[in-house]
């Protein structure tokens, strides 16, 4: 079966020498893939490259078998994303903003907007200007915009930032439901390691711009350790590898 996401030898270097190097990754249908790594490791860069916000120096990215560089529209047609921070046209309200999003998906049902707002718990604030929203509410709206077009692949960058406990639980349930009921594939970059442990079937650890470890969560944690313990061990190994010269330093913060 063709992978939903196929990334091969992807590299991108910023002027400060940070970025990502030689990343190769495949996501299969129904995967909930967690991307872990310290600040500045290259997680957001990887997501930006996957969505064409920035261009790679080398390597290839294909979503649903279509190259992001050559067939952007068809590659992105079934993708919902939330990259970096939840930013909006603050002078619109939630419904008007989602209407702007919906126009790019002609087959979307009319009632989908209110249903999605209901799912993320924003229906009481549907007609309130976004500039009055809290960080958590904006995060929920960004999540609504990501899942509104009925995507088959959802890319989420720090989706639980600013969410209250209820919001986090709601987010977790939503990911589980969409993944199990509709087979939606998720790629979630987050620092909330316990969230990822509960949600993901596969994990990748990015360090210094490189994907230093990845695999099925069940396989990685076979020795009975938690994901946090595993992550800390991997991080220590990566730091050692850098000092031994086996890994190029990505200067993570």
């Amino acid at each position, binding site marked *: 079966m063709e992978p939903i996401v196929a990334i091969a030898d992807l590299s991108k270097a910023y002027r400060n020498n940070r970025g990502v190097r030689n990343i190769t990754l495949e996501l299969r249908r129904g995967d909930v893939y967690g991307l872990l790594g310290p600040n500045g490791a290259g997680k957001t860069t990887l997501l*930006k490259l996957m*969505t*064409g*916000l*920035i*261009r790679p120096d080398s390597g290839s990215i294909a979503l649903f078998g279509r190259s992001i560089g050559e067939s*952007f*529209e*068809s590659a*992105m*047609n079934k*993708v919902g*994303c939330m*990259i*970096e*921070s939840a*930013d*909006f*046209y*603050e*002078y*619109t309200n939630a419904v*008007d903003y989602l*209407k*702007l*999003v919906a*126009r*790019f*998906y*002609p087959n979307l049902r009319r009632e989908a907007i209110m249903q999605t707002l209901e799912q993320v718990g924003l229906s009481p604030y549907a007609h309130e200007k976004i500039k009055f929203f809290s960080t958590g509410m904006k995060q929920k709206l960004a999540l609504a*915009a990501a899942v509104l077009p009925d995507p088959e692949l959802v890319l989420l960058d720090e989706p639980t930032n600013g969410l209250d406990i209820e919001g986090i639980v709601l987010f977790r349930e939503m990911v589980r439901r969409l993944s199990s009921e509709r087979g939606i594939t998720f790629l979630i970059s987050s620092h909330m390691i316990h969230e990822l442990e509960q949600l993901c079937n596969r994990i990748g650890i990015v360090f210094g711009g490189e994907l230093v470890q990845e695999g099925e969560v069940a396989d990685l944690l076979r020795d009975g350790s938690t994901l946090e313990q595993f992550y800390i061990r991997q991080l220590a190994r990566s730091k050692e590898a850098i000092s031994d010269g086996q890994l190029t330093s990505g200067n993570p913060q």
Partner: protein
Amino acid sequence: MASLRAAIRNEFCLMYYRKTTLIFMVVSVVVPILATFAFRSLKSVLGIISVNSSFPIEMLGVYTAIWIPIFLFLTIAELFPHEVSTRTLKLSLLRPITRFRIYLAKLSALAVAIAALLFLLLAVTLICNALAGSVGQSLADWFGFVKAYFAGFLSMLALAAFFSWVSQFFRSSSGFLTFSIVIYAAAKIAPYFVKGFSAFSLASYTDWYVLWLSNTVASGRLLTSSLFVLSGIVLFVSLGYLSFERREV
């Protein structure tokens, strides 16, 4: 094409939500009306100034030299640098639409807004003419107005294409606004000091419609100036798109 249509509709909606365009439309309607009343009141004092059959053309001169360029700078600042600084540009870049279509949608919305401003101005100045009791225009006058306003539209489009390209180098709207106002003012003043500058400056073509109204201008000169404005539009739309395509968000 569906994605382009969606993007254009979205740009119109955003223009409506932002209110800048609406405010400009309202002021564009109010100014000629106020001018008509002011001229009528001052006629007894000043004698010469009055609303007459050339009122639509006189107002076009003021609008294409100052008012519409200001509208362009503000709107372009909102369409590009402001969206970069507030990180809202990615909201459309992350949708299934190419950057070419996004850029085209933004410029199309801007072009329609300029056309709407000019149409409103023509309609209001003609109504003011009628209200001021000016003699009814002949068919030739009407044809002249349409020609002049269309020429004015093309020159504003060329300015829009140029400043849209310039805006790609800015990440903040205030920086772009300051720079574009200074550049535009300098381009307007330069012909007084540099001989031949106006022939190569799009800013000197804001009163280009005068050529279209004149009966003494050679058709060859009209053709070369038209080609200059049209090639300016094509060149700066292309350059703007290239910069937009390469922009990392």
